């Protein structure tokens, strides 16, 4: 039996939350400008809103990767996940871009100034171009699946392009940071690859969590193909993705702790923080254990919990990475301490909530509008 939790309550809650948080953020930005953020010219230029934007963007591309890989390589048993992933990818992107628009100095100018600048040497220019292609392909694939044009036929060619676009966006996002050789905390050749695996893990976590959310956190309410997916392949792939991400996280931390290079002393600071241990042990190791143990691997509550913990862990990772790379000030002498301190302002926190509510509102609307849980649609 397929039974969805009614979307309207979620939609109403999300819309109400969106109105409150957006009003709070917009009022503060209108009255204080960017002074409402806790960035500073001492070295903290990209702060919490960029963390939120990147998190939502990479989650979106991860979801698109999960959907595209399922469409390209998966069988019909992957079908129930695909449309939900695609719509969630769109919803996440909307949330992230909304925050970015409030972070930029001139968001409207960016709309024309970036695409028409042809700044080929800039990773951000390429990122924007890939994001535009990514959005178009996301809509094309979703549209084809909704036309009932067949599970693997008409949607497969654009799904291949969508996968490439998602990989491109994620990889270039990694290049933006990885190419900063003057910031050893960020710079490394493996960053684009790490971003891709991190994004894929996020996509899997969000796909699982929102599948449960749509079915009232009950496997009993799910259609049997979806139940089969969650009982079989999905948790195993999820566990594998956690392992790969864990290897990136632990190797980066170990090298950071051992190195004497200036900039990497930030690792000492991060590892001494409880946040890092929540990210590592609660957000990655615990979900991995849950997915490895036979008793919990197929359990709905354990899967939803594992997914939620990974989602939180990835957000902490994104925060530590982006903020950590800016904690050592650049040539400010005695005007700045050896290591800058940073905590998000209330306005910055409200932008995170705004993105969450906005993405959930879009997702809930799509859930009811496109009947995402329905197996028949797009089949």
């Amino acid at each position, binding site marked *: 039996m397929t039974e969805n939790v009614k979307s309207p309550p979620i939609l109403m809650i999300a819309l109400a939350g969106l109105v409150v948080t957006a009003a709070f953020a917009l009022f503060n930005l209108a009255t204080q400008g*960017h002074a409402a953020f806790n960035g500073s010219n001492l070295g903290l230029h990209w702060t919490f809103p960029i963390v939120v934007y990147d998190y939502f963007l990479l989650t979106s591309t991860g979801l698109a990767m999960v959907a595209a890989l399922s469409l390209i390589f998966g069988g019909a048993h992957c079908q129930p996940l695909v449309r939900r992933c695609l719509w969630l990818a769109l919803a996440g992107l909307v949330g992230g871009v909304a925050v970015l628009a409030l972070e930029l*100095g001139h968001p409207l100018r960016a709309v024309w100034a970036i695409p028409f600048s042809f700044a080929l040497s800039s990773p951000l220019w390429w990122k924007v171009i890939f994001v535009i292609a990514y959005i178009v392909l996301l809509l094309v694939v979703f549209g084809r699946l909704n036309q009932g044009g067949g599970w693997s036929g008409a949607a497969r060619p654009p799904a291949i392009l969508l996968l490439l676009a998602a990989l491109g966006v994620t990889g270039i996002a990694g290049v933006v940071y990885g190419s900063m050789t003057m910031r050893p905390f960020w710079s490394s050749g493996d960053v684009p690859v790490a971003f891709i695996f991190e994004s894929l893990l996020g996509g899997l976590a969000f796909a699982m969590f929102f599948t449960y959310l749509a079915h009232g956190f009950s496997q009993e309410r799910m259609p049997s193909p979806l139940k089969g997916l969650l009982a079989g392949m999905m948790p195993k792939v999820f566990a594998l993705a956690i392992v790969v991400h864990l290897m990136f996280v632990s190797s980066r931390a170990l090298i950071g702790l051992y190195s004497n290079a200036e900039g990497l002393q930030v690792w000492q600071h991060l590892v001494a923080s409880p946040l890092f241990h929540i990210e590592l042990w609660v957000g990655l190791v615990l979900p991995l254990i849950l997915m490895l143990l036979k008793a919990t691997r197929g359990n709905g509550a354990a899967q939803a919990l594992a997914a939620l913990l990974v989602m939180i862990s990835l957000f902490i990772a994104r925060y530590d990475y982006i903020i950590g790379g800016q904690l050592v000030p650049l040539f400010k002498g005695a005007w700045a301490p050896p290591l800058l301190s940073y905590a998000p302002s209330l306005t910055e926190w409200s932008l995170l909530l705004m993105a969450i509510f906005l993405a959930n509102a879009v997702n809930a609307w799509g859930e009811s509008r496109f009947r995402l849980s329905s197996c028949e649609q797009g089949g």
Partner: protein
Amino acid sequence: MAKWGMVIDLDKCTGCQACTTACSMENNRLPGENWQDVLFYTEGKYPNVSMKWFPRPCFHCENPSCVSVCPTKATYKDPDGGFVLIDWNKCIGCKYCQVACPYGVRFFTDEKAVVQPDIREVFPSSNGRQWDPPYKGPQDDPSRGIGIQPHGVVSKCTFCYHKVSKAPKGVADLDEDIPELKEYVPACVRVCAPKARFFGDLDNPASYVNKLIADKRGTRLKDETGNKPQVYYLSGGAAGGVPGLRSMKDEG
């Protein structure tokens, strides 16, 4: 075409901050948002304490990372003079250039005021600029990042483009001691009391700046980044040297 560059003799610099003050006055900078600054470094613990200082303008690099990362080409390298400038009409305030500059010489001044009281509230602007100071220079060229900084954009030292670009063509050095050239000399160079700063054409073999760089083995800050600054430092060891670290030493 000239490639303007600066030489700063650290053995002569007294850290008096006259350059910082002159730059702030010339370019209507907000307090604390200094395009040109003299950084102080204190090291050690009592009784073995030393204090060093390091003057730091924008380096107008030959191969600037800020230019290559800018997604709108708002930051650009002027081929006529080698200035690195910002077109405020194209800047979207993404701050990528600030992140990519290894030297921390770029400023997004919409943030909280560095120095209280917030002078922007004392002299508010009504035309989209950060503030409306009671005295302001006549120069205003947003396409080159000259004038009072608007909201939502990044700014930086222009090497006093509005002065230097008007210098007679072919001149090798802009020296404040030469009466007919002094109006073209960057503000920080012109006011330097111990004459620790020199400004000239790095592409002109006859320029005094090139002679100084050659004779005193001029070095550039963090040359390993590949940015190739057009500002050279001279240090015979009598005073401060070029810092190897970008931050103060953590001695806690």
